[in-house]
């Protein structure tokens, strides 16, 4: 296929199609040797739509009405194409055969709906086209549900174009296949498709696909991370972020159009069956029940009342949105369009009614997401809250996040709606959730930047000064609880003190707790496991005790049975026991004579058995060390307890070399190319504890990481008092509370730096 230096766009695609047409027409003329009656070459599918991109194949149908001799003609057309290495998707059929295939195979039908005559007997093509379209229209009532089912199935397995890190331009929801589905619905004459927005979205998607094929040299449709920068440059965009943002907008536009269209189809099909059944009531207008001042419900949607005028009532948009969401209804597209045309900034500070409606909207929970989405796509939200523009369609680069920033914020607020009973000020919770990541997209730490934005925004929204302070606290500390709970020793009073000082009051603590949960649920599945929830709950409980003046309950620590084991001075491994199988792992207690490298060795055994370590706490009694681990299997079911026990014992007495085993495994693992991994970082955390030095290690997770770190620490002659291990996606964050091996005191500055350096060296 000719590869042109033309810029991307519809003209280029049309030029490619025209070139293909000319070639095929020439081939047909040669093959038919002058007599092309009863044969036609027809372009179908993407080729029929003139959407040729660099990696496209030719989708061609050889239509004929001949009884004999068609095989030879077909040979003379296909072989030159095959021999030239051009990808061909072909079929040879009579009109009747094609009609029958269309009736049975939905995918083939979709391709044929876009058929276009290339060369030969045009009457034949027209005959097929009119037959197929007529069949489709008459069978639409029965076949549209089938089409919808297959579309839903495809969406479920392919994710959403707008939010995926590496979307499939064709198959994801909001992608090219959805656009083809919309064309099919349009062609069925059952419902109308919103054209105005779809056109530009379709063009953009095809341009990106074209650029992707050109850049990779293949016909893949998955926009992988490592190609995003190249594709962006190819299209003349600033960088990968600009590309993904533009795609997010496209994806949401198409997904929204798909939703509206199917709603319309439902309405029409429902009316068709209704009209058939209730002949007497035919002709009466659909009932409209009032929802709020200026808003009525009609046919399953929220619609503006006949006398409502959004131009004179600027709060109407929020009122309508809140009413719709509270009733669990979507806003009708016509209503959204009217709001888009008349939306304007509210007087600042916002009137109380406006703020109340915003809170009512967010408080509706899940239905609020769809309503917000509809208004956001129309640009209304950015008009009302200009600070929203920066996070709109902004992609997240962290694989832990499911959604773009703006959708994440709305999802968090929707999640918080279920938690409002736990807090004294539901409005602050909902608005805090909506704004907690508003600092993303600006340089710097997004919590700090977000706080600055909210300090300016909240008064403009009409919140009084004390409320503004609470909102700022929520934004600046929205990661405090999960960070502290998973990386700090909760038994150390200093830890609780830090949290209590940041939060200030019990009411604020409750707000922050609820916000943390709502935020995590809106992030992704890994972010709110029962393990994390329990840790955070424990932290909150301790902080509440400090804030309300009651003494902090101390953790039970080791049981009497465990201490008894330690005094015996024997290596003992105890797996399980009463209450040992917690939500996220099994508790393994290892008792052995204390010595350097104990933690590293046992961690190594766990690594060999592919057990991920969640946490580890050690206590030394006389000369024995008791370490309590929480582990979970990385794949499948946990290993046999006896085998695990035996290996730990052998590793500790030296007959099993775990280090070597882990090295071998790491060497034989083939690393996936792709994301560039930042180098590991080791830092000394100041002020985190009075009785130990706290080291925080962040590195890309790999087998034996914990073992390596433990070995390095042992070599540096420090004793590990306790360790907290977390994994976020593929990144590990390990925190160690260490003291000098000989004195048991925290390290001084020089020593801390030296230890940090040696651990960093061990990680490279």
């Amino acid at each position: 296929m000719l590869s042109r230096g033309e810029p991307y766009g519809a003209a280029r695609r049309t030029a490619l199609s025209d070139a293909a047409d000319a070639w095929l027409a020439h081939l047909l003329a040669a093959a038919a040797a002058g007599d092309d009656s009863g044969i036609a070459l027809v372009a179908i599918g993407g080729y029929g739509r003139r959407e040729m991109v660099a990696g496209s194949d030719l989708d061609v149908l050889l239509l004929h009405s001949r009884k004999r001799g068609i095989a030879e003609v077909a040979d003379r057309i296909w072989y030159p194409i095959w021999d030239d290495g051009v990808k061909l998707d072909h079929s040879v059929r009579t009109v009747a055969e094609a009609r029958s295939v269309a009736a049975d195979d939905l995918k083939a039908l979709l391709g044929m709906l876009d058929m276009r005559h290339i060369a030969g007997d045009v009457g034949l093509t027209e005959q097929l086209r009119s037959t197929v379209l007529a069949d489709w229209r008459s069978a639409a009532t029965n076949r549209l549900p089938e089409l919808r089912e297959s579309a839903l199935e495809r969406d479920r397995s392919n994710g959403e174009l707008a939010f995926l890190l590496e979307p499939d331009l064709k198959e994801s929801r909001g992608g090219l296949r959805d656009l083809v589905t919309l064309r099919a619905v349009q062609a069925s004459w059952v419902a109308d498709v919103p054209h105005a927005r779809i056109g530009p979205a379709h063009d953009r998607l095809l341009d990106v696909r074209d650029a992707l094929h050109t850049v990779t040299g293949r016909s893949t449709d998955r926009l992988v991370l490592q190609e995003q920068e190249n594709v962006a440059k190819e299209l003349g965009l600033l960088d990968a972020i600009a590309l993904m943002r533009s795609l997010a907008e496209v994806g949401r536009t198409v997904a929204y159009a798909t939703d509206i269209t199917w709603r319309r189809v439902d309405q029409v099909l429902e009316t068709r069956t209704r009209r058939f059944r209730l002949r007497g009531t035919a002709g009466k207008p659909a009932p409209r029940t009032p929802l709020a001042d200026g808003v009525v419900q009609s046919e399953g949607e929220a619609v503006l009342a006949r006398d409502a005028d959004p131009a004179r009532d600027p709060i109407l948009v929020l009122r309508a949105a809140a009413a719709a969401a509270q009733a669990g209804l979507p806003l009708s597209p016509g209503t959204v369009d009217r709001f888009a045309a008349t939306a304007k900034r509210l007087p600042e500070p916002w009137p109380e009614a406006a703020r109340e409606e915003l809170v009512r909207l967010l408080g509706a929970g899940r239905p609020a997401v769809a309503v917000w989405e509809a208004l956001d796509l129309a640009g209304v939200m950015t008009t009302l809250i200009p600070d929203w523009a920066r996070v709109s369609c902004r992609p997240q680069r962290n694989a832990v996040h499911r959604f773009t920033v703006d959708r994440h914020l709305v999802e968090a607020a929707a999640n918080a709606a279920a938690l409002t009973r736990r807090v004294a000020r539901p409005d602050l919770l909902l608005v805090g959730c909506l704004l907690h990541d508003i600092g993303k997209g600006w340089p710097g730490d997004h919590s700090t930047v977000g706080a600055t934005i909210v300090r300016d925004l909240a008064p403009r929204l009409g919140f009084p000064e004390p409320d503004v302070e609470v909102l700022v606290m929520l934004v600046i500390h929205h990661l405090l609880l999960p960070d502290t709970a998973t990386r700090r020793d909760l038994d150390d009073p200093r830890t609780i003190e830090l949290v209590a000082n940041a939060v200030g009051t019990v009411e604020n603590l409750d707000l922050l707790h609820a916000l943390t949960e709502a935020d995590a649920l809106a992030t992704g599945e890994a972010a709110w496991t029962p393990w994390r929830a329990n840790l955070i709950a424990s932290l909150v409980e301790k902080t509440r005790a400090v804030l309300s003046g009651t003494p902090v309950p101390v953790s039970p620590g080791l049981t009497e049975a465990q201490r008894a084991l330690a005094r015996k001075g024997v290596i003992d491994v105890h797996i399980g026991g009463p209450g040992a199988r917690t939500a996220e792992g099994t508790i393994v207690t290892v008792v052995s004579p204390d010595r350097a490298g104990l933690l590293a060795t046992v961690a190594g055994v766990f690594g060999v058995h592919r057990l991920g370590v969640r946490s580890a706490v050690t206590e030394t009694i006389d000369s024995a060390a008791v370490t309590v681990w929480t582990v979970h299997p990385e794949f499948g079911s946990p290993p046999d307890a006896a085998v695990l026990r035996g290996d730990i014992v052998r590793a500790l007495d030296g007959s099993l070399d775990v280090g070597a085993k882990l090295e071998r495994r790491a060497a034989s693992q083939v690393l996936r190319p792709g994301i560039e991994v930042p180098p590991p970082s080791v830092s000394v955390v100041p002020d985190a504890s009075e009785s130990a030095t706290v080291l925080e290690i962040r590195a890309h997770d790999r087998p034996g990481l914990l073992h390596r770190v433990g070995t390095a620490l042992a070599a540096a002659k420090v004793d590990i008092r306790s360790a907290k291990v977390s994994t976020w996606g593929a990144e590990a964050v390990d925190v160690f509370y260490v003291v000098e091996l000989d004195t048991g005191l925290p390290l001084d500055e020089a020593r801390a730096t030296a230890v940090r350096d040696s651990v960093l060296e061990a990680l490279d």
Partner: protein
Amino acid sequence: MKLVTAVIKPFKLDDVRSALEKLGVHGMTVTEASGYGRQRGHTEVYRGAEYVVDLVPKVRLEVLVDTAESEAVITAIIAAAQTGKIGDGKVWVTPVESVVRVRTGERDAEAL
């Protein structure tokens, strides 16, 4: 030494065997296989749905030969297996490090 592998249409097996016999190649391994190439298994006059890829029955032939003979063997296989129609298959050559005859322990050239 080389391993010459060919994937051909099943009905052409006898023709290929005769051609190889004439060249002095007496041993081979034959397996049943299925596959498709660029044409996705579709015949020239294909009526079914476009998006289907069909696995078509083939035969896979493997012969161990001296490096000097590999070209002649390829030519012979192609001449015998070719029909000019889609689906004729492919022939390829890979290097072999060593060959041993199981019964006698002969190696390399003697084992061919």
